[in-house]
Structures are given as structure tokens and as C-alpha cells.
């Protein structure tokens, strides 16, 4: 806002034909365009996008470009010219630093106690964790949204039954669900994804239901109904597109939860099994050696923290962009 506005000479001139023409109305801005503009203006959200894309880029390309495989046990030649397994080497950024150890091999994050390159393993782990999170949350989104929309749209007995079911599932602590699954399934990626599938869709369905309850009273739904549309047609072509915003926000908040759950499960020992690795299993390995080799735990923990921070920032930004408050404009 400008203070102390000094009137200009032009302010007192009559409006000419030309000026009138310039004063045009702006073209109406689409809903998603508005959301996009708000989102990109938000510094925190953009920081989140930057952090997450950084990790994703490294997770995609670093294992491909690395000269070692993530499960490769590397051997190096020591001073005496003997071949030894490169166990527990500290981080070495260049060959010059490495000279008193060995020849021509660099390990940016060092190696683990089995002689595997931690740089490759960290990014491979990030990749596994991200894949698990994306796959699980995507399926959760499909299930939860469908369930919530159906429950909200039909109401009455259907809603009652579906909601009681959710209530029961929701009152079993996640821990208990995981333990039951751990009995049924072998440890590994499948177990992690399954436990995420069972627990995370509930939040999604609650949001979809709440949105559906709001939307189903709208005129356009009634119009569609009058024109002879069936219930499922209305749900999926009229209501669903309007619930996408809140659902995406929920997805953004669910992904860090999924990454966290994976890390937690792998840490406890029911997640990823060796020689596969994930953020959680790397943290666990680092924790086991923390007193002797404290540097091993830093890379996976940093990646985890950056991912959690990034996704939370994106989620916050998205929520604000969907429903901008006046004070933030």
C-alpha cells in the first residue's frame, strides 16, 4: 500500500476513449490455475518441492551412475598390495585423501561393515522407501476415496454399516495390525506395503466422505440426477473431480507417514531384508555400529529428515493454496 500519495497531473485529465479501452476485465482464472499460482508463490512450499525433487533425482540417478552395485561387496588393494574387502571405510571424497588406504576408489559416504558402498546404498534405500510410499499411498487413495464417496453418497444403512466397519478397523492400533500381518506374511517389502494399505486408507476415506456429504446437495448433482444419471455416474464424474483437492492434500501428508512407517518397520526388523536396503534398514545398520563408526548413520537419517520435511512443507503449501486465507494473500 502506498502512503502519502502525491496527486499527479494526469490524474486530473479527462478520461479519453483510449483509456477506457485499456480498462478491460481480466479473463477469469480457472480454479487449478489459482491453486498453482498460490502454491508457487509460497516460499516454504517451493523449498519443499526443491528438497523432495533433489532426493528423487538422486534416488533415480545415483544408483545408476554409481560404479558399484548396492549389494556389491567391494574389495580394494591395501598398502601391501593385497586384495582386501573394503570394510567400514570412512568417507573419502577424493583419491588424494584415500592414498594411505588404497588405490583409485572413492567412497563418498564410506563403506559399511560388509564392504558395500554407502553412497550407492543410501540412494538405493531412498529409492526403495519412496517406491513403497508411492505405491502404498496410491492404492490407499484409490480404495479410500471410493469407499468414502460411496459411503457418503448413499448414506443411510450403507453409510452406517461402512462407518461401523471403519470404526472397528480404526480402533485396532497400527502396531497390532502389523504384528498380525507379521505372522501371516514373510518379512519384506510386501509386509510393509500391506500394513500401509490396511492403516492409511481410513484417513483418506474420511476426507472423501466429508467432501461427498457437502457436495451431494449441490444443484449440479441434482441436475445430473434429473437428466437421468445413475448413482455411480454421479459419484465418479460429478463428485469425484471436486474432491480431488483435499484428497491430494491428504496424500501429501500420508507419504511422509508411509516413509516413516517403512523406516520404523525396517528398524524393528520386520521390514526390508538384507541384502536389500531401505532408509530404515540403513538406519538400523548405522545404529548397530554407532559407537565405532558413527558416520554410517548420518546419510540415511539426513535423507529421511529431508524427505519428511519436504513432504510436510508441500502438504502445508497445498492446503493453503486450496483454501487461501485472506491474511496470507
Amino acid at each position, binding site marked *: 500500500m502506498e502512503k502519502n500519495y502525491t496527486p499527479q497531473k494526469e490524474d486530473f485529465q479527462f478520461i479519453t476513449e483510449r483509456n477506457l479501452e485499456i480498462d478491460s476485465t481480466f479473463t477469469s482464472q480457472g480454479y487449478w490455475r489459482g491453486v498453482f499460482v498460490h502454491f508457487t508463490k509460497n516460499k516454504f512450499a517451493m523449498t519443499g518441492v526443491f528438497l523432495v525433487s533433489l532426493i528423487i533425482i538422486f534416488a533415480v540417478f545415483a544408483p545408476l551412475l554409481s560404479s558399484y552395485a548396492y549389494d556389491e561387496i567391494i574389495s580394494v588393494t591395501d598398502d601391501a598390495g593385497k586384495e582386501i574387502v573394503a570394510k567400514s571405510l570412512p568417507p573419502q571424497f577424493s583419491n588424494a585423501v584415500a592414498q594411505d588406504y588404497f588405490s583409485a576408489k572413492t567412497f563418498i559416504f564410506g563403506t559399511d561393515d560388509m564392504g558395500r558402498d554407502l553412497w550407492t546404498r543410501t540412494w538405493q534405500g531412498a529409492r526403495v522407501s519412496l517406491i513403497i510410499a508411492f505405491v502404498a499411498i496410491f492404492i490407499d487413495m484409490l480404495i479410500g476415496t471410493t469407499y468414502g464417496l460411496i459411503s457418503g453418497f448413499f448414506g443411510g444403512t450403507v453409510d452406517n454399516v461402512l462407518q461401523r466397519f471403519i470404526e472397528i478397523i480404526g*480402533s485396532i492400533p497400527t502396531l497390532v495390525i502389523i504384528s498380525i500381518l507379521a505372522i501371516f506374511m514373510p518379512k519384506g517389502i510386501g509386509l510393509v506395503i500391506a500394513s500401509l494399505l490396511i492403516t492409511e486408507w481410513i484417513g483418506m476415506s474420511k476426507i472423501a466422505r466429508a467432501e461427498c456429504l457437502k457436495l451431494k446437495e449441490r444443484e449440479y448433482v441434482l441436475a445430473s440426477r434429473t437428466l437421468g444419471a445413475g448413482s455411480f455416474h454421479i459419484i465418479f464424474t460429478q463428485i469425484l473431480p471436486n474432491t480431488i483437492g483435499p484428497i491430494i492434500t491428504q496424500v501429501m501428508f500420508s507419504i511422509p507417514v508411509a516413509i516413516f512407517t517403512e523406516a520404523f518397520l525396517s528398524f524393528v526388523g*520386520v521390514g526390508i531384508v538384507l541384502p536389500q536396503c531401505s532408509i530404515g534398514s540403513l538406519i538400523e545398520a548405522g545404529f548397530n555400529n554407532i559407537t565405532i563408526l558413527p558416520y554410517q548413520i548420518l546419510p540415511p537419517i539426513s535423507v529421511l*529428515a529431508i524427505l519428511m520435511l519436504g513432504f510436510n512443507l508441500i502438504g502445508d503449501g497445498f492446503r493453503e493454496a486450496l483454501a487461501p486465507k485472506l491474511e496470507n494473500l
Partner: protein
Amino acid sequence: MTKYVAKRILMAALTLFAITFVLFVLIRIMPGNPFPVERMSAEMILQKRLELGLDKPILVQFADYLKMLASGSFGNGTSLYNGAPIKPIMLKCLENSFKIGVISILFGTVVGLFIGIVAAMHRGKFLDGFCTVVSILGVCIPSYVFMIFLQYFFSYKIPFFPYFFDASNFLSSAVMPALSLSLFAISTVSRFTRNEMVEVMNSDYVKLAEAKGLYGWQLMRRHVLRNALIPIVTVIAPLVVDLLTGAMVIEKIYGINGVGKLMVDAIAGQGVDYNYVLALGIVFSALYIAIMLLLDILYGIIDPRIRLAAKEG
């Protein structure tokens, strides 16, 4: 109010019953064998099955199990692996976990409230930013990572606290796990408190109170806090659940004999101990449902509107 409470209690009891049934059936119909097969002959397994009543129909087994629960013992009373009775071990573990859990929830809520209030009172200034950073840290650093760092620096580098949990020296060994568990509570409660308070502070009646000349702490206590506190009760429920999960890892890291560690041992140890999983599953669910119930009732007491809604509905 009585009707509201009675309805809630009935619902909770039904849910717990349903969960017990589901858990029981799931564990019974599971493929595979509950015994360490490689160490037992076929005859021994058969005899053991008869002994435990596993040959009976599943509903009869469930009824037997309920009877056992009602008489106060868990499972078939013993671990499948070493034959030790479950109940005393579990009680001991529950006591440890409970103490640390309660300390961290109380500490976390109080500190979180404090930070939130300070942030809201200094909205947009340096302190507010500082509080935001604290709450973001709490969200993106898992409690066990914090615990690992604490353990590394304050037990290993500077041996100030014991490296592993020591029940005989409870106070000093509870500090680190309680602190790291409360981290998440602090961040959630502070963020929520701040947002709620800012919202209330923008409301008309607070502006009126300000116009009448109330200011500072008086205004906060009499007008803002009371209304801001109501929704905060709701965030505590998820916190308790999170605590269960967090405690599981922290107990493993710090060697605390708690229920979380017991559960980890039961599912990830030498083999899955069905009796433990079942017993712990029921205890966890009961605990969780009880907390939810308590908060629901508390919420009804604090906010009269909820009671009215329940009466109408």
C-alpha cells in the same frame, strides 16, 4: 450426559469384543504351526495341540479364551517358547512403559502448550519463528533418531546418563527416552495451540475484551486459552497412539523392558509367539480404546455443544 457416557462405554466394549474376536480367529486360522517344529516330533506336537485345546472348534476355543481373560490370565497363560507365564512378565513391562509414557505425554503437552502460547502471544516476531522451527523439527525427526543421538552424545561421548535403561536407577535413565518420546507431542501440541489461539484471538469477543481494557496474561487466561484448549484435547488421542509406536523402537534402542520391546521380540525374534501377540494385541487395543473413550467423555464435559449434539442424534 449419563446417556451419552453409557452409549460411548457400550460402543467401546462392543468394539473391544469385536477386536478380540477378530484377533483370535486370525491367529487360529493361520496357516503354519505355532510350535518350534524343528525341535519337536509329530507326536509331541499332536500332544501339545490336545493339551492346549487346539483340536476343538474355533468358537469353543474362543469361549475358553474369554473365560481365561475374565479370570485374569492371558493366552494359555504361558509363552509358547519358554513356557514362562505371560501375565507377570507383561505386568512388569507395562509398568515400565506406562511410567515413561505418562511422563513423556505430560512433559510434551505442558511444554507444547507453553511454546504454543508464547508463539501465539508473539505472533509474527522472532519467538514465533523459533517455535515454528521447533515444531517442524519435531515432525520431521522421528523420535528414535533423536533417541540415538541423545544416547550417542550424552551416554557414550559424555557418560552422564546410563547407556542402557536401568530399572534400579529409574529417574536418571528415564530422562532420555521420555525426552525423545515427548518431542513429537511437543511439536504437535505447540503447532495446534498456536493456530487455535491465533484463531480465537482474531474473534470478536476477544477484540471486545481488549477494547474493554483487558490485556496480556489476564486476557489470555480468561478469554483465549479456555476456548483454544477445547480442540487441543483431540490431538492428544493420536499422540498416545504415536507414543505406542515410538515407544516400541525406543525400548529396543535403550534396552527398556517394556511392552513395545516385548512385542518386537514376539514378532521379530526367533519365531512368532502367538500367545504373546494375542495377549499384547488385546492389551494394546484395550488401552487405545480406553484412552479414546476417556477423551470422548472429557470432550463432552469440556464442550457442552457435543453433549447437546449427542442428545439430539
